[in-house]
């Protein structure tokens, strides 16, 4: 089964040899299942000069309960791109791992990376595969962002793609947010985003936007100063993907909170 001449796609290979490992290929009993599993919430992405920033809060909820305080929802998809997950946490994590393997697999088989648009299209078709479960309430919506190595202008190389349960991708200009708090995060970004931000400014802006989301959405977790749990912030630039250390995000989050002590509206 391994030596058949086949595609370079790992999901296409899985669909032949182990279809049960693909999300969306499992038969579900009829009825809504929305409240049976934890939900991951808000992710924001901002394009900056020379790259892109993605940040996610750390809360997962189940109905009115907090299911997990320190879940990680923003991950590197490969060396130059990032993926954030909102929606049903278990399926989201599975999908994200599968997407990571999909990109790495293609790269190893073909000896070259997929283009950024190619990666976004692959992710869209994987989301579409989960449509049946999404209609029963187990939806997963990712946010995808990356540094486009083929971009002519390095200032515009940071690109963001959004999706819906039927697939996508939809390229976003400037910034985007997904998840329950996205309405508030996007409103904050709408007023504060300026084209050509530096990566450092975009990181600060992302943490501010997550604070605004947590301010008005109970399912989004704000910076947890007592437990020292802060948002996960990652960047993708010409140097590759990078996750800010806990110390760095702590410093930014604490300064955002200090700012809000003076002016709660930010």
């Amino acid at each position, binding site marked *: 089964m391994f030596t058949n*001449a086949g595609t370079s796609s790992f999901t296409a290979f899985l669909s032949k040899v*182990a279809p049960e490992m693909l999300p969306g290929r499992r038969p579900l009993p009829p009825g809504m299942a929305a409240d049976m599993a934890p939900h991951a919430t808000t992710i924001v992405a901002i394009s900056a000069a020379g790259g892109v920033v993605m940040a996610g809060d750390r809360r997962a909820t189940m109905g009115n309960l907090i299911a997990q305080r320190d879940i990680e929802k923003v991950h590197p998809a490969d060396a130059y791109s990032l993926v954030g997950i909102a929606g049903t946490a278990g399926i989201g994590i599975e999908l994200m791992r599968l997407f990571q393997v999909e990109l790495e697999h293609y790269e190893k088989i073909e000896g070259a990376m997929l283009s950024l648009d190619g990666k976004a299209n692959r992710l869209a078709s994987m989301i579409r595969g989960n449509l049946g479960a999404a209609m029963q309430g187990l939806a997963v919506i990712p946010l995808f962002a990356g540094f486009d190595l083929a971009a002519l202008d390095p200032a515009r190389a940071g690109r963001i793609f959004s999706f819906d349960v039927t697939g996508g991708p939809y390229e976003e200009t400037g910034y985007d947010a997904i998840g329950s708090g996205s309405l508030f995060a996007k409103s904050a970004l709408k007023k504060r985003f300026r084209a050509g931000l530096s990566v450092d400014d975009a990181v600060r802006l992302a943490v501010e936007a997550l604070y605004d989301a947590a301010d008005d959405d109970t399912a989004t977790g704000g910076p947890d100063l007592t437990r020292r749990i802060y948002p996960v912030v990652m960047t993708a630039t010409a140097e590759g993907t990078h996750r800010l250390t806990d110390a760095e995000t702590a410093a930014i989050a604490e300064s955002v909170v200090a700012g809000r002590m003076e002016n709660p509206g930010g």
Partner: protein
Amino acid sequence: MAMQFYASPEQIMRDRSELARKGIARGRSAVVLSYEGGVLFVAENLSSTLHKVSEIYDRIGFAAVGRYNEFENLRRAGVRMADLNGLSYDRRDVTGLGLANAFAQTLGAIFTEQSKPFEVEICVAEVGATPDDDSIYRLTYDGSVNDEPGRMAMGGQAEAITGVLKNEHRPDMSLSEAVRAAVKALSSVGGEGGASRTIAANQLEVAVLDRRRVGRTFRRITGAALTALLDGEAADTAPAPGRAKTPTVPTEEAKKPTTSAGSTDLEGQQDEAGGEPAQ
């Protein structure tokens, strides 16, 4: 009706072995050796795109000689198997030994069941924490596996090359010394009248599994970085960044993230200061 002549099983196996050996001996050779900073692969290859050396998984590399279509088929199978196991269990559960066994089963079955054996010889190498922990497996066309002592050569005139390599190789060599030893061994045969010859840098395919990296450790060394290593200059500095040629390696600085598929992410080794292990 055509007359079927009797051929003894021994004769059939001998004929198949001879066919495979002849095919392998026609090709150019490759060597694999462990050095202080990892495992080095050097192959003589006129093409810069049809690779003889490639990445299988985080800490596992693959080198082959012989027929391209046949070893490429095995390489793809290895990548598929490694990715499937890594996804269903964990990235740490993919081992060089497991892959070597799978390749051995495949090659053995092809040798006995098919009318023509694969004319290939392959090497599966896994980099460990120290040179003693490296494992290098040689697999031949009939499915036999050998655990090699830190170095191996395969292809045409492999024995002569191994002889030179044995004299030159030490487990504590630097990368530059290891590259030069490998090239000396490869070029010790094939000259006029059995003399040594010179192999140009653009006819070499060089790659390493870098012991000190987390996540994906495989990287190719090409262009100016390779020339510098061959000249012995800039002995063990990392190669100059060459984005187009090495898409899997975003930067050569040790501190920067080098993993593609978030393998560090899954192993919970994100940053020294990054504290929390992932799920």
